[in-house]
């Protein structure tokens, strides 16, 4: 997609902005985004974070039926109990205040993260070794159950039976682990 501003370079940033109370899709190349940077409040140097704050505002306004702007409305909004950060402040700054903010704003996060991370909202990378033990086993189990389903579908029953036994064994191990803890 070409940049809507210069129509020559490829658009690298895609976001939604509120202009006069209406949503507007923006598709800009790096350079035009930087040139427009001064129009984004609170920034003198352009960065993805500032563009992001425009994006976060959308979520909030659409929660208010899209009629009123932030200034005129005092919306009932989530507040993080860990650090006291309001959703409005998060939306303005594009920054979380603490780990618990992720829980406090959970219902609003999926669309935001999807836009920032090309449609992804769920972690599938590394898991901490010391504290993430069970998560790792659970994810492995999901994978094994998936395998088991496809083996059954393909009528590879011998392999399916072997997988089933292995899963049962893992389940047993997990439960005994919980009792220890």
């Amino acid at each position, binding site marked *: 997609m070409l940049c809507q501003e210069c129509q020559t370079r490829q658009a690298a940033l895609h976001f939604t902005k509120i202009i006069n109370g209406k949503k507007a899709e923006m598709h800009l190349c790096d350079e035009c985004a930087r040139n427009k940077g001064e129009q984004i409040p609170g920034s003198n140097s352009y960065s993805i974070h500032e563009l992001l704050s425009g994006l976060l505002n959308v979520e909030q306004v659409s929660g208010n039926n899209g009629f009123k702007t932030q200034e005129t409305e005092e919306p009932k909004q989530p507040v993080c109990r860990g650090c006291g950060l309001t959703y409005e402040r998060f939306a303005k700054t*594009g920054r*979380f*205040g*603490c780990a618990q903010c992720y829980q406090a704003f959970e219902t609003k996060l999926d669309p935001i993260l999807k836009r920032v*991370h*090309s449609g992804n909202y*769920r*972690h599938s990378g590394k898991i901490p070794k010391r504290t993430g033990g069970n998560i790792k086993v659970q994810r492995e189990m999901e994978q094994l159950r998936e395998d088991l389903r496809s083996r059954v579908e393909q009528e590879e029953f011998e392999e399916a039976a072997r997988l089933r036994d292995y899963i049962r064994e893992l389940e047993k191990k997990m439960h005994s682990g919980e009792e220890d803890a």
Partner: protein
Amino acid sequence: MSLQRFISEAISPWMKNEPGPDSDIVLSTRIRLARNMEQYPFPVFASQETAEAVLHHTAREFSSIRMQAGSSLERLNMDDFTLNEKRVLVEKHLISPYLAERSQFGAVMLSPDESVSIMLNEEDHIRMQSLFRGFQLSEGLDFSNKLDDWTEEKITYAFDEKRGYLTSCPTNVGTGMRASVMMHLPALVMTRQLNRILPAIHQLGLVVRGIYGEGSEAQGNLFQISNQMTLGKSEEDIVEDLQGVVTQIIRQERMARDALMRSSRTYMEDKVFRSFGILKNSRIMESKEATERLSDVRLGIDLDLIKGISGNILNELMILTQSGFLQQYAKKELRADERDMRRASLIRERMELEKESGE
């Protein structure tokens, strides 16, 4: 202080290691991990007391880590430095502008060769970066994972099953990893092929930035290619995607260099030696021109047109001719016109040094 001494102290020891794979095109590889601790608010909105506690906690843990040959990390507190000293650390890519200018109780822990730097109280509690010469993404990831595992033994991270490693900014959440490769791409710029390649790179979730200068007007033909996305892909997949794209670009750059040498050898020689001559003789040199001329000379070295000069000259002089370093060498604040004169003379002297040691 003699120039030789100044350079040897100014340039990070890791930059003098063996050049590393594909170093004719890839200058360096960097992996950065963002991590936070569960029990403290993140630095951006944190109180002074919290920031101080975070610094104490993290610095205490990292002080027990042992790097190569049992060496430990050196801790530099931002509050102990002058503005210009912090600028120099930014120019060496050891700390971020944010840590230098906006952190409270910010500090960096450096390994003796400066290839590992751990920023404390940056936007996140912990930002671990490791630098490698040449194209070494998988080695970099291995090393970073070890450093991360060591840290996780001591510090309980803010981690969520669904969102991964929790970060201050939503753009870093998930793996918290930014892998990047610094590339010198003069032939792709000269043949105008880079603009054709860039859109495809964007579509793969990677970003390309000029290292000096802005946007597509990157100075010195130096580009940083890194992952934009940190959520939804594993670290290995992110690195593999980046690896694939960079490998492609390396191949294209080599082909473009070959083609230029075959079709326009005299033009190339003229460009390279003209810049070489200007660097050796100028009395006033603006930073933009310096960067471009240095890029030409580096290309000349890689094409074997200029002999007896180390390819390091580009990496070194790129850093040494920035304003923070020039002022440190001069030991005073310099006006812009003074910097341009100092820059020209530092480059000339550096070229002389090379000649002496080459003969």
